[in-house]
C-alpha cells in the first residue's frame, strides 16, 4: 500500500475555493443567526427572563440551576444588558470575519450557557443546540474568518507587527 498516496488523498480540502466559500457561508449564516436572535432582547427583558428561568423550572445541570437562581435572576437587568451586548459583538464579528477564532469560541461557550438553560424547556429541539455548538467549533477549527473576512485580509500585517493589539488579533484570527 502506498502510504504517501493514501495520506495525500485523505488531506482536508481546507484551502480549496469550495472549502473557503463554504466556511465563509457557514460563518456568515451563524453571524446572521446571532443578529436575528438579539432583536427580541429589549428592556425590560421580560421574555429573556422567562427563558432564563427555564434553568430552574426545567433543570439540566444542578450547579447551573443554582447559579441562575441565586446569582443571575436576582441581578437580571445588568446580566441581560451584558448578554445582549455580548451577542451584538458575536454577531458583528462573525459577519465581518474579525477575530473569528476567539469570537467563535465565545459563541460556543454562550451556546452552552443557553443550552443549559433552555434545552429541556417546552417545544425545544435539543439538537438545535448541539448543532449550534458544533457549528461554532467548525468555524473556530477552520479559522473561517480568513476566508472572505477581515482576518484573511489583515492577518499577515497583524502577525508581523510589534504592536500588542495586533499580535493578539493575529492569534485570535
Amino acid at each position, binding site marked *: 500500500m502506498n502510504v504517501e498516496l493514501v495520506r495525500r488523498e485523505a488531506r482536508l480540502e481546507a484551502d480549496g475555493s469550495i472549502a473557503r466559500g463554504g466556511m465563509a457561508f457557514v460563518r456568515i449564516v451563524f453571524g446572521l443567526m446571532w443578529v436575528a436572535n438579539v432583536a427580541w432582547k429589549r428592556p425590560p427583558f421580560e421574555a429573556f427572563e422567562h427563558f432564563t428561568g427555564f434553568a430552574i423550572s426545567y433543570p439540566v445541570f444542578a450547579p447551573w440551576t443554582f447559579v441562575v437562581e441565586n446569582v443571575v435572576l436576582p441581578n437580571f437587568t445588568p446580566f441581560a444588558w451584558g448578554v445582549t451586548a455580548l451577542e451584538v459583538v458575536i454577531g*458583528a464579528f462573525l459577519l465581518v470575519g474579525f477575530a473569528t477564532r476567539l469570537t467563535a469560541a465565545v459563541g460556543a461557550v454562550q451556546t452552552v450557557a443557553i443550552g443549559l438553560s433552555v434545552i429541556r424547556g417546552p417545544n425545544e429541539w435539543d439538537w438545535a443546540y448541539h448543532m449550534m455548538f458544533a457549528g461554532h467549533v467548525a468555524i473556530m477549527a477552520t479559522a473561517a474568518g480568513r476566508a472572505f473576512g*477581515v482576518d484573511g485580509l489583515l492577518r499577515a500585517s497583524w502577525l*508581523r507587527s510589534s504592536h500588542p493589539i495586533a499580535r493578539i488579533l493575529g492569534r485570535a484570527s
Partner: protein
Amino acid sequence: MNGPRRRAVTTIGVIAILIGVAGALMGAASPMFEVPGRSLFRFMAINLFGGLFSVAVGVVALVAARRANRTLLLWCGAAFVAAALVNLVGIDRSFNVFGGHASLASVFLCFGTGFVAIALTPELEAGGAGDA
C-alpha cells in the same frame, strides 16, 4: 490601499448602502426618527434616518476606498461604531435617532469594525516586512 483592501471596503460599503436604501424605502412613509423603526427582514428595526445614515456613510466609504484615504475610512468606521452604541443603549428610547434595536447595533458594528480594522492596520511593505 491595495487591491484586496479596496475590494473589501467596497463590498462592505455596498452592503451598507443596500441596507440603507431598503431601510429608507421601508420607512419613507413614516416619521423620519420613528422609534422603533420598521422591521427589515422581519427582525432588524431601522427608521428613515437610519437608512439614510447607512447610505451616506457607505457612499463616503466608497469614496475613501477609491481615493485610498485611510483617515476618511476611519471616520466612516467610527461613525458606524458610534451609531451601533446609540442603537444598543437606546433600545426603544426616543434619543435613538436610528430607530433600531440590538440587531441594527450588531449590523452597524459589523460595518464599523471592518472599516476601522482596515483603516488602522498598516499595509505590508513589498517583501513582507510590515511597519509597526
